[in-house]
């Protein structure tokens, strides 16, 4: 019995330590922040830098750090330095909730960009709504910004799956593909893609003959492809992010399937071609932002200069090609800076009001037209169709 008392005393000590720790730190932070409050604008960022979705979070974090350095070099914002505080959510809801609360309560940020996944974004929305802190998510699910009435402080930058599917289905109608097979990954990205693919199919007179699923870490999808081959659809649509689609492209080659293969904007990066291998990737068509075909864009394209500049700077700093996911952080920050400039304040409501006035603002994802009803700001033409031809992206048509 007394043994328990001793352990409990330690617990008391531990709790005291923890609570004073939190208290002291927050008091100390307030003290420290007080004088510096005036000349620093603190912006929070939550990305899944590690864990299963690290291929989203890592490029987003790299880009965010780069963009903040850039703006600080060119005089900061409203004459103040911008301080970025980045937390890793490991793609887990609890971690994201704690991170956002920490950013709001302890770090006293004026706005937040991220999270990377739609799941973690939906988990933190109630917090930012209550705290009236604007959040610009880097995840592409419609539920994030709808219903707008309950999402006043929430925006999202990535192109919605709906537009990607519409772009594909238009192409299918043009090519006369009526029966298609879909193969989607079993995570947030794949599930929302699958939802839109099935939702919009009837509108375009398309029939989905096979609705197959694969796991994010699965190493072989020949079974699903064999089943699909048996149903000989007109086209196959794969919705997922690396490495799955690359394995599927290889399996398709191996099984000698000739049916045209379409993918999602989730694989719009050089990495995909490298993983799938030149011949397995040959001829794959997918909707994508203009980032990967920036050099092939006509000079009149408003995004061209900005994209080339982003690619050059990213390559110089990190030595590798930027990905469309990194582009989301780029757009989120620039939209936020533009809103703060227009609002000339860091108050949450003012930033939101300013954001909603931003019209044809070029970003890496497309031309943003935000409004009180549309917190996403992009449309179908944010996407272009691109094809892989001998190991390179090729602009199919605007």
């Amino acid at each position: 019995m007394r043994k328990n008392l001793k352990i409990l005393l330690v617990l008391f000590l531990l709790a005291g330590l923890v609570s004073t720790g939190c208290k002291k730190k927050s008091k100390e932070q307030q003290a420290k922040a007080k004088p510096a409050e005036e000349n620093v604008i603190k912006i929070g960022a939550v990305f899944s830098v590690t864990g299963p979705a690290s291929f989203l979070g890592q490029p987003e974090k790299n880009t965010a750090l780069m963009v903040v350095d850039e703006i600080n070099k060119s005089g900061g914002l409203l004459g103040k330095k911008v301080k970025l505080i980045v937390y890793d959510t490991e793609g887990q809801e609890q971690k994201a909730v704690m991170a956002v609360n920490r950013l709001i309560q302890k770090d006293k940020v004026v706005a937040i960009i991220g999270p990377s996944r739609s799941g973690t974004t939906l988990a933190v929305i109630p917090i930012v709504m209550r705290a009236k802190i604007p959040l610009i998510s880097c995840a592409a699910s419609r539920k994030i910004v709808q219903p707008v009435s309950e999402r006043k402080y929430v925006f999202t930058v990535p192109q919605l799956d709906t537009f990607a599917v519409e772009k594909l289905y238009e192409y299918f109608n043009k090519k006369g593909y009526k029966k298609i097979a879909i193969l989607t990954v079993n995570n947030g990205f794949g599930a929302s893609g699958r939802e839109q693919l099935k939702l919009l199919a009837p509108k375009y007179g398309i029939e989905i003959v096979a609705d197959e699923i694969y796991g994010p870490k699965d190493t072989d999808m020949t079974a699903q492809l064999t089943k699909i081959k048996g149903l000989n659809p007109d086209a196959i649509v794969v919705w997922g992010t690396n490495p799955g689609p690359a394995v599927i492209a290889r399996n398709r080659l191996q099984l000698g399937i000739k049916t045209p293969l379409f993918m999602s904007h989730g694989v719009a990066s050089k990495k995909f071609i490298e993983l799938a291998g030149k011949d397995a990737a040959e001829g794959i068509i997918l909707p994508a932002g203009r980032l990967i075909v920036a050099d092939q864009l006509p000079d009149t394209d408003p995004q061209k200069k900005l994209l080339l500049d982003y690619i050059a700077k990213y390559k110089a700093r990190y030595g590798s090609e930027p990905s469309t996911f990194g582009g989301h952080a780029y757009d989120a920050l620039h939209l936020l800076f533009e809103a703060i400039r227009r609002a000339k304040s860091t108050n949450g409501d003012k930033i939101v009001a300013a954001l909603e006035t931003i019209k044809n603002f070029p970003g890496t994802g497309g031309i943003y037209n935000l409004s009180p009803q549309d917190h996403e700001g992009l449309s179908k033409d944010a996407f272009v169709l691109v094809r892989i031809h001998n190991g390179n992206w090729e602009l199919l048509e605007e």
Partner: protein
Amino acid sequence: MRLKRYADILIFALLLIAYPLIITDNYGLNVGIFALENIITVTGLNLLMGYAGQISLGHAGFVGLGAYISAILTATYHWNCWLAMITAFVLVGIVAFFVALPTLKLRGHYLAMATLGLGMILYIFFSQLVDITGGPSGFVGIPYMRFGSLTFSSYSTIYVVTAMITFVIIWLSKNLASFKAGRIFRAIHQDEEAVVALGVNTYHYKVLVFVVSAVFASIAGSLYAHTVIFISPASFGFKRSIQLVTMVMVGGMGNIWGGVTGAIFLTYLPEFLRIFEDYDIIVYGSLLILVIIFMPGGIAGAVEDIYGKFKNTGGREDR
């Protein structure tokens, strides 16, 4: 005699009451609520692993099951949240019972692998039954807890409810651990055959403690659902089950307060480790190894040994 036995629970109650008075900001309360929810699951798991010696590598599955049943009953069918929580842990208890019947005949690695497999299967059902659970994109729109006209939407009110339920769970676990059942669990952990020879149906006891730990996990799941009001399969996978087991091991097996300490320590630690950014995964992994090697009794065990050395009484009377 009774007061002495309950001294430690009263101190725990004081801790629970003191915390929100010291920490008033939402971040501190939020971490506190998650720590309490972890305490509930870890205490159940401690009874199963620390006391009865039966390992489970799939307990996040039961947390998820409780969370989803609560979410579906309250959001889709608009049940009262308390009725939903009770229905959830009754259903989870039944599922755990039927799962336990074949599983607890196994021992050691086989038991570990079976529970791991069960956790994975539950996870797959969460992500595949899209039209009921919302699938991998998660379940949106879970209502906050309500009692009459009072809605628990602020962290302070959620903390109060969670703290009360945690206290009840700890009280129940204390009873279970300190009377007859606790002794028999500990005896089973050390030498099951000898307990059988005394006339105890050890299989019955093992199934019992498995169901109790699953019910506690379900309650924690329901509370979590009403705290974050959004759930997705990602929070109830293999990684989460391992975190829960780590809390039991690091805290100290076979002692209620060991489990509590482990849950608190490993809920707050990552928050302090944020400064390490990417490196916290390395700190976590090495911490796990170091504790098993150098502190087999976990934090509680180490405290006991240090305390024992100080007092170094002859017959170690106060064992």
